[in-house]
């Protein structure tokens, strides 16, 4: 029942591991399948979890990116993510955490406001992505994006680090006029 740390283990050779956390089992499973179908030079591993902490008696590879999936139609899903976040080491938030909100398309069904998730993501300084995972085509393009993020986070894109990507994605950090 330990806190999850990014540097607990050594990285596997050419392996990139993503951990998807959320209450929507079926959707996570589908998302994982779509990700594994992506054409990618690295060896992809997808782990799913309902919530954190993860059981400590299992051996698992080093986790390069954690994505918390929030279903906007369920308050419980948000609570679950908020609970799980406590079991993540601060070092993870240097670019190795992402939030994914699903269900934003159907406004009328939402019980969690979009801004709530936005504030959550901002509080943890992590990018927030929107995608309706129920729709196949949207899920596939989201899987594509996650794979790209994962490759950067696993250090498989030369010259770009996870923190670097985070600073590019963060909307509050504007490039200064002299920054180039």
């Amino acid at each position: 029942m330990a806190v999850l740390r990014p540097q607990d283990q050594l990285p596997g050779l050419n392996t990139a591991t993503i951990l998807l956390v959320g209450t929507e089992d079926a959707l996570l499973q589908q998302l994982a399948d779509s990700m594994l179908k992506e054409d990618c030079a690295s060896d992809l591993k997808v782990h799913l979890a309902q919530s954190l902490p993860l059981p400590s008696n299992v051996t698992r590879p080093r986790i390069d990116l954690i994505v918390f999936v929030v279903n906007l139609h369920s308050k419980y899903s948000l609570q679950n993510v908020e609970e799980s976040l406590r079991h993540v080491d601060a070092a993870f938030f240097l670019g190795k955490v992402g939030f994914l909100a699903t269900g934003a398309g159907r406004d009328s069904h939402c019980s969690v406001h979009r801004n709530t998730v936005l504030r959550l993501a901002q509080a943890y300084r992590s990018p927030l992505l929107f995608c309706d995972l129920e729709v196949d085509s949207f899920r596939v393009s989201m899987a594509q994006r996650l794979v790209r993020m994962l490759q950067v986070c696993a250090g498989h894109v030369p010259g770009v680090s996870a923190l670097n990507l985070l600073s590019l994605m963060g909307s509050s950090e504007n490039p200064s006029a002299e920054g180039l």
Partner: protein
Amino acid sequence: MSPQKRVKNSQTPKRTSRHSNSYQSNLLAWKLKENLSNSKSISKHGQNSTVEDSEHADADELARDALQIAMRYFDKGPFNTPWNKDKTLEKHLKTVENVAWKNGLAPEGIDILLNVALSGKFGSAVNSQILRCMIPATLISEDSVVKAVSWLCAGKCCGSTKILFYRWLVAMFDFIDRKEKINLLYGFFFASLQDDALCPYVCHFLYLLTKKENVKPFRVRKLLDLQVKMGMQPYLHALLSLYKFFVPTLISISLPIKKKIYFKNSENLWKTALVAVRQRNQGLSPEPLKLMLGPANVRPGKRKWNSHSLIPVLSSSSHSKEYGKEGMSLSDYLCSNTPFPVEQLKSFLQLLQNIHCLELPSQMGAVLNNSLLLHYINCVRDESVLLRLYHWLNQTLQEECIWYKVNNYECGKEFTSFLDTIIKAECFLQEGFYSCEAFLYKSLPLWDGFCCRTQFLQLVSWIPFTSFSEVKPFIFDCLAQLFFTSTIYFKCSVLENLKELLQNWLLWLSMDIHMKNVMDNSLETTLSGSMKSVFELIHYVGWLSTNALRLESNSTFLLHFVLDFYEKVCDIYINYNLPLVVLFPPGIFYLALLSVDSSILNQLCYIMHRYRNNLTAAKKNELVLKIKSEFIFSSKTYQEYNHYLTAMVGCLWTSKPFQKGSYFDPEVFKKIGVAKYKTSLNLVHHPALLSYAISFLLKEWTEERTVNLSSIRGKKWNGYLDYLFSEGLQGLKHFIQSSICHSSVP
């Protein structure tokens, strides 16, 4: 206006509570008669009625009869003992409902039902049931609405019915044939704002109805009072900002400019029905005109338009009354001060002759498909026209956007072609619509970057000119997030469309400046503001490109798109006459300079050549005009350019690379095994040009066994240059001719 209609009008105000008056029985009698004579299409009021088609005649006949009886029942039926007749009522309601959802109701039917629903003959449950099924076959007559409103005054119906009625009005607004008389009741509607429950719906209705002349100081005062009472509600806000738009002097309080959505669409009960009505109206239509100037577009039947298009068809209400008659000459139109129906507008000449009395279609969206009306919209001074169009676009974009209707997103094709039409209209007008911008604000964060990609990015390129820093958090930050996590192809198309955006802004600004020059002298402040905005856009693209190149491991393909963008940037001063020169960031310059692709190097040379021309032109103007412009021509820009130029000449020509600025320790070169590093980037040894040098040698001296690259010097060097130029490296040619003095051949 037909004589009969006029009679109707004079009766309208008198009508209060009894329903068995002459007009209504007239209507029914007419309806019955027509039913008996079994005529197939009726065009009494210029609209086709519900009943048509003889194909499935029998079933239709039965349904029609049932409807007839139901209508008669509602019109004068035995209401003395309404609750005993529950069964009958139920049966008739069912009939009406079925017909309404299937084919819609004729204007006369709606007239009768509105009367019944609002007169309080039945309980509120029945009333709401009736209101819910009031779906027009094609159009709703204005008089029915006026009559219905008079019932509201009689106080016979309860609050919830009133609310439903207003919601119905808002939903059906586009299908009401004319609005003049309704507008005369503006005061009444405005007074209804007092009712707290009604207020949001009345506000929405007024938002649609308001014209400039309706904005009065006392109404503004009332609205402000309401706002104090109820707080800053979005609907009040909407109405206030509309008022402010019409008469800015009357409202001094500041309202946030960028507000997303004022009214919730999810409240529309008649969504699916509306789509059906729209399609029905389209079925009756002639072919829409193609977007083209001149009479060439008049040939009808040439092009098959998507029959399920979301865009309504042109129809103005007065069509086929007086003006529908054939044989009326143009001069007749001109003499009369009566409106000219848009359906008959076929040529540009006609547009010019009738521009003073053009009656716009009842459904504003129809103009998108009509080039002549787009011309009209472009030059008309009446803001309410544009406002109506924007409102319609807002609604439709939001309702139809695919990712808002996850359940039935098969209509993706429809939405795509709708976006295409909007973009075509924007291209035609060379102007972006504000509603599209608002739509982008709302939907970009939810966009997956894949569906309707072309259309979406094109919408981005038509964002109207604004302050960049203001729209950045809404649009460009979301775009950046997508950009950095998407494929290289997405990155390329984003850059391509940002180039378009820059071009649109520049064109708009260069036009705007010429116009302003004539009008006022306050140019200086606004111009520097606009230049700042353009500068920020270019800077943003520079930031995107530098990082994208890093992420995509310096892909040549991507670099092409980046340089394409800078080809636009480098010519701003000369091509658009705008005082702005922005250089590219070093991350792009050095990548291009050291690229192994000759076309990249060539493009870079061309861009440097254009920068030079622009900067020298700017300097010359500065000297001539003796005014130091405060804009971007700081000495820093010149220094930066000179620095780049030195680096380029040092590499390509004089074989003294990186003498100033970036210094490399010669030891490093020794270590990596490049002994003659000095010459290794000149025109002969540069990795992008090496193959040219070798084929030059092989071509000129075929008998030589070994190729000695360093033999290219002196006369041979000049020959080599000519060879390079003849191979199509025109950018290099321009650069060398303009930036390098030819005596310095090594």
